[in-house]
């Protein structure tokens, strides 16, 4: 469904992602794990068009998307819940979700999706008239995911959904990710919380300083001592 082939991304003269290749199949969760600063977020930003790769190819459903604008990529069915939530702080929960559905014309199905999102995240229904900026971190994360889902995406990119969340909230988010997957969503999950990500995903890529250090079935990687090494260096 999605393939990255030899992607390089530079910030000025510094290479943040150094020629990585990733495959994501239909209806699967693929996770990108690694320590801070390994290049995971940059990879996601490249997929969503927020950062143009300096070389390499990104294909989505067989078509090249690495030269498209973020607006065009969203229109093709890729939605992202970004790192640090980034909800629209001075808009209500409801308005944030509406913005997620900005490009959609099918009113009836949009309505159904609202219901589906409120089913996954009941708290959002309760808070739907509240300003997004006043929500707690966990609620904002749910809203960011909900907003991404409102575009009816074929592919969902989740960037560090557990960042800064308590263990209980992290578990909550993990459960919802699994639910979404069971309902047939394709998800790319970027996580620092490797243990959680490796239990959710089928395939995993471990990034280190812009490269892919390891990749394979998540199950196999789960007990690989090398993972701890890439995080803690010893």
């Amino acid at each position: 469904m999605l393939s990255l082939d030899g992607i390089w991304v530079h910030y000025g003269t510094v290479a943040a992602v150094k020629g990585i290749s990733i495959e994501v199949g239909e209806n699967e969760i693929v996770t990108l794990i690694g320590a801070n600063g390994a290049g995971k977020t940059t990879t996601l930003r490249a997929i969503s068009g927020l950062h143009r790769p300096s070389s390499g190819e990104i294909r989505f459903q067989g078509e090249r998307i690495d030269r498209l604008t973020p607006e065009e990529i969203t229109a093709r069915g890729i939605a992202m819940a970004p790192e640090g939530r980034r909800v629209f702080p001075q808009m209500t929960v409801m308005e944030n979700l509406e913005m997620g559905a900005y490009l959609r014309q099918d009113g009836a199905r949009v309505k159904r999706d609202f219901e589906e999102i409120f089913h996954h995240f009941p708290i959002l229904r309760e808070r739907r008239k509240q300003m997004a900026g006043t929500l707690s971190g966990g609620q904002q994360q749910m809203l960011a995911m909900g907003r991404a889902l409102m575009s009816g995406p074929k592919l969902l990119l989740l960037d560090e959904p557990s960042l800064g969340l308590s263990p209980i909230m992290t578990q909550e988010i993990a459960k919802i990710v699994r639910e979404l997957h069971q309902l047939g969503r394709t998800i790319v999950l970027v996580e620092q919380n490797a243990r959680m990500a490796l239990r959710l995903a089928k395939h995993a890529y471990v990034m280190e300083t812009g490269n892919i250090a390891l990749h394979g079935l998540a199950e196999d990687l789960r007990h690989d001592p090398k993972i701890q090494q890439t995080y803690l260096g010893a």
Partner: protein
Amino acid sequence: MLIQTIANSVVAGSVYAIIAVGLAMAFGVMKMANFAHGEFFMAGAYVVYVFYALLGWPFPAAVLMAVPIVGAMGIATERLIFRPTRDNVMAGFMATAGLAFILQVLVGQTWGVGLMRSVPTPYMGAMDIFGAKIGWQRVLVLPSAVLMLSALWFFLYRVKAGKALRACAQDPEMARLQGIRINRMTMLAMAISGASAGLAGALMAPIHPVTPYMGHGVILTAFIIVVMGGMESIAGAVLAAFLLGIVHTFVTTLSDAVTAQMVGVACMALVLIVRPQGLLGRVKA
């Protein structure tokens, strides 16, 4: 006397609000600061002059014509000046100072420079409120302002495109990720900004001396309001507009117009010292 002054304050505040809201909006969406905003106001007044005083259209129709005409000027400004200078607020601002020159010359050379073009008052007589007399023409400004601000509010909070505009102002990158096209939004913002300045000028045409340089006084007031309100906050602009309306009117009544301007600037300096982000502005984290 007091009631008269209060009534005048409200009228002044209404005009200021219409003018400043457009400026705050353009700045909020993509940091577009329009030095020629006062000239857009002037253009609106000239639209009324041409259609109402010269061509004999009904006054309301002439006022409405200002909306598309000056709105289109806003769009043109966005395409020709703000878009090429998008990464540099100052460059865009200075370039629109050049635009102000151009508009002044074009209008001045077409309809005359020295002459004070007076537009006859379409609504004679005055309204009597508890002994205070206010010309109907001025009274008209208040409902127009209320109507215009409500329409803007409705657009921003109830219409999808308006909500998208707010999303753009809050986080342009995230707005793009929702599929919102930034370029359309900046054009829309400038259209609204221009239209509102034009509308204000059109409404004021019969009670304000119409000259190619009438924008000068307007722009200073508008910038004071926007700085006081918090640069990109529309609600802040409205609040500051009415505050400044009160200050200007009262000081003008007690002293004179020049002193009123000075007190206005002093208010702005005070806000800058006490609360640099403006009355309703937010501190960026």
